């Protein structure tokens, strides 16, 4: 009985590491969060061959029991049978145990009662029936004779394990400390390695890594002394996890490799499997993709042969991630797909999350932002449900933020970004606490060593003196108290630092937001600046006509008056004069309105958009802005030159749009077109004279939609940056000349404000065409 419990306890830990770098506590059944592994996994981990031989053992044992005449011997044999049964059928083991307990109590068979009740409590723990388990332990505690200290230690250990399984680590540690005291006193070297391993798990869960490591080292030394290689392999695996937790990756890698080696020698498939899986996770964290892939695939192969779908899925996800980072996207996508399928069939949420994350990353790295979004969302949804706010959560949020940004959803982008920031904030807190832990750990190790040396000296001088041993024990306690105090102080310091960092991040975020608003305003002002020069020129043309046509009309009227008083009136001339005056008045009116529209346009552009949609003549808008843009650039850059043509569909109906917003879109497209043809012209005119910079603006109706096309024969957009042009702050213009917001605002206005679409067709060196399609 006592032999088996600690094994189950710590093998359960091994199931731990397939998902992330953290130790998950799988052996806590009902209290545990849903994403953790099937807690009973350890019961089935023995290979089929062993099971087969167990069945044979069971059969022959049953036969022996049948033939046994002595009652107490039959009970002893049944105790062995229960041990065998527990490995394959807990309920059968419990049933037989209860049955035999009745017989043993009738016979008042002391040893039988103690062993059967221990077995029962142990098996009840594994089925999650803690009340029954506790009842049996209580009973034994009172029932047991003082001379049976080994048994008593076993009972304490069972308590410790039970509380560990329930997630009550403090209680677990309390009982295991007692167990260890007892077992150390009687030099129970067979049980001690198990005790050490189990208590280390408790400390690990409480993030007390120094204590965990200390017990693991003791356990390792003892397992090595006992020559139990399988135990050595398991202990090393656990130690590697501890090292990984305190960020000592070099030691962790070393431990994993050693553990895997030992596991191979003893054919401990599960240890080997978890070794590969954990090591792969570690390399992923280190971004050593080649090694990560190699180990992940090893874990996949081994998991497949042992039928562990969860780890297989996790391994495939890690392998996919590693390949994607090596830009082998086709294979990476294939592996990630397999991972998702397997993870879903395993029904383990954390595996599903990891698989989705792998697929999302594969797509993300290929800049398939839109496609990556649902996978990231799925991953984050699961992580959030499981409250796993660690590095993977932070990274996924940051990636997701980028995805939203690239697809123009800035609100969501900011949201994800903010979550990511807040997580990295709390991540830092974990790191700070780890740092604090390391500090106290160094201190403790040093002190420990000194005390050990002192202890050894004392033992030599006054051999086996209990009082002094007690003193040394007190010393240890004192050191522990001091260390705990230092650790606490460090944590406090870390917390203060944390608060400062948090404030800083919040402050930065606030600044970021206001900067964003300022940039959008400055983009408006920048294009307004370009406009003003255009307006100054443009307004002079209509004014020229208004002034001159009104003056000349006055002259014409004077002439007409003179003609009227003449005796020989020239009626033909009079008619001509009247017709001219009339047409001049029309022209004055026309140019007056033109000036009015220009001024209004300027005011509208500088004002914040009212967001009100009104029936608008798109042709008029195009015509107005192409002129403004042209003259604006002309005024700014004397060398600027370009032809422009308008090809406007006169049958276009008025469309409900926010005129100043759409005007800004058109202005931006035209400005860009003029800019690029002019850039090309500057280069081409040095070589030949055949290049004629040309910008064409056309509108047409197709399939009930209005299409605005702005085409240029400039340099075109290279493929490399084609994807980026709609991103905010992306600009090819020299620093200070472009805000990089023009096209990104245009994109927002068209897609979000008007449910339209904007696309670009471009050929490097030949030209670019932008299409804005608006629903009528």
């Amino acid at each position: 009985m006592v032999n088996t419990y600690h094994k189950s306890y710590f093998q359960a830990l091994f199931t731990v590491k397939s998902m992330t770098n953290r130790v998950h506590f799988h052996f806590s059944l009902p209290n545990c969060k849903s994403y953790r592994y099937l807690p009973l996994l350890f019961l089935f981990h023995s290979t089929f061959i062993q099971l087969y031989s167990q069945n044979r053992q069971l059969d022959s044992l049953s036969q022996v029991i049948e033939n046994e005449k002595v009652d107490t011997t039959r009970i002893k044999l049944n105790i062995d049978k229960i041990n065998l049964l527990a490995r394959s059928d807990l309920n059968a083991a419990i049933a037989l145990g209860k049955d035999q307990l009745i017989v043993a109590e009738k016979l008042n068979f002391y040893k039988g009662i103690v062993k059967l009740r221990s077995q029962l409590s142990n098996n009840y723990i594994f089925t999650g029936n803690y009340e029954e388990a506790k009842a049996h332990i209580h009973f034994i505690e009172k029932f047991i004779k003082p001379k049976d200290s080994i048994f008593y230690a076993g009972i304490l250990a069972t308590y410790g394990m039970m509380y560990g399984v329930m997630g009550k680590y403090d209680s677990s540690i309390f009982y295991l400390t007692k167990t260890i005291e007892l077992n150390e006193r009687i030099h129970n070297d067979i049980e001690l390695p198990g005790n050490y391993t189990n208590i280390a798990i408790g400390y690990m869960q409480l993030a007390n890594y120094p204590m965990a490591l200390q017990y693991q080292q003791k356990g390792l030394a003892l397992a090595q002394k006992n020559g139990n290689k399988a135990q050595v392999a398991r202990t090393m695996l656990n130690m590697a996890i501890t090292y990984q937790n305190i960020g000592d990756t070099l030691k962790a890698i070393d431990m994993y490799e050693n553990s895997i080696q030992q596991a191979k020698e003893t054919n401990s498939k599960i240890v080997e499997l978890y070794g590969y899986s954990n090591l792969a996770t570690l390399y992923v964290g280190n971004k050593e993709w080649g090694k990560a892939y190699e180990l992940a695939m090893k874990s996949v192969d081994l998991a497949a042969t042992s039928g562990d779908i969860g780890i297989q899925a996790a391994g495939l996800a890690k392998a996919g991630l590693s390949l994607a980072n090596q830009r082998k996207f086709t294979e990476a996508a294939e592996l990630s797909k397999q991972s998702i399928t397997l993870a879903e069939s395993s029904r383990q949420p954390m595996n599903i999350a990891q698989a989705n994350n792998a697929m999302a990353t594969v797509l993300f790295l290929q800049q398939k932002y839109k496609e990556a979004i649902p996978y990231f969302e799925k991953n984050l949804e699961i992580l959030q449900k499981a409250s796993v706010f660690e590095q993977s959560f932070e990274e996924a949020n940051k990636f997701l933020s980028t995805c939203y940004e690239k697809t123009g959803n800035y609100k969501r982008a900011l949201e994800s970004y903010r979550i990511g920031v807040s997580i990295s904030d709390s991540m830092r807190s974990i790191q700070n606490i780890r740092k604090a832990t390391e500090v106290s750990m160094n201190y403790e190790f040093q002190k420990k060593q000194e005390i050990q040396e002192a202890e050894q000296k004392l033992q030599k001088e006054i051999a086996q003196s209990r009082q002094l041993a007690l003193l040394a024990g007190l010393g240890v306690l004192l050191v522990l108290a001091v260390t705990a105090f230092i650790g606490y102080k460090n944590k406090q310091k870390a917390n203060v630092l944390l608060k400062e960092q948090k404030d800083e991040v919040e402050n930065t975020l606030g600044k970021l937001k206001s900067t964003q608003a300022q940039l959008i305003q400055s983009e408006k002002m920048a294009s307004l600046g370009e406009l003003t020069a255009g307006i100054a020129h443009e307004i002079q043309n209509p004014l020229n006509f208004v002034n001159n046509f009104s003056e000349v009309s006055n002259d014409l009227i004077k002439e007409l008056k003179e003609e009227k008083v003449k005796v020989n009136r020239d009626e033909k001339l009079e008619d001509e004069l009247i017709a001219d005056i009339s047409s001049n008045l029309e022209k004055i009116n026309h140019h007056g309105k033109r000036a009015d529209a220009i001024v209004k346009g300027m005011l509208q552009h500088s004002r914040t958009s009212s967001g009100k949609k009104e029936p608008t003549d798109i042709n008029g808008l195009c015509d107005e802005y192409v002129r403004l843009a042209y003259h604006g650039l002309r005024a700014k850059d004397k060398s600027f030159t370009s032809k422009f043509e308008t090809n406007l569909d006169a049958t276009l109906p008025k469309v409900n749009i926010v005129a100043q917003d759409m005007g800004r879109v058109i202005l931006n497209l035209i400005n860009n077109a003029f800019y690029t043809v002019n850039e090309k012209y500057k280069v081409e005119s040095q070589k030949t004279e055949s290049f004629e910079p040309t910008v064409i603006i056309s509108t047409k109706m197709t399939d009930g939609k209005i299409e605005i096309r702005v085409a240029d024969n400039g340099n075109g957009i290279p493929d490399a940056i084609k994807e980026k042009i709609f991103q905010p702050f992306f600009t090819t213009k020299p620093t200070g000349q472009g805000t990089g917001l023009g096209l990104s605002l245009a994109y927002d206005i068209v897609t979000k404000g008007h449910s339209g679409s904007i696309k670009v067709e471009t050929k490097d060196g030949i030209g670019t065409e932008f299409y804005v399609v608006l629903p009528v």
Partner: protein
Amino acid sequence: MKILVVDDEQDVKALFEQRFRKEIKDGRVEFAFAYSGEDALQLLNRWEHEALLILSDINMPGMSGLQLLENVKKRYMKPPPVVMMITAYGDAENYKIAKELGADDFLTKPVDFVALKEKLNLTNG
């Protein structure tokens, strides 16, 4: 006297024809209109040997007035015709460049036709 007016605004034709109504009627002046720098050059090529005066706007799509000026003064005609540039009010930069390129005179918008006629010695006409 033949005057070529270069401006991308179509209404300049009506304006000039009315402003110089009497002068045109009397045959003292003849107007031609071009609505772009390119058009202007084509016309000038056809009339290579006719003495004329060019009145050109500066801001036009395609070839600008300054480019036209440069072409006229440096490449095409010998002796080059008189070129008068119409600049926007206060546009010192264009004024300077045009001067360097050999512009003979300047007008500012809105065009003062009384002043223009004085310059062309048509005031008493």
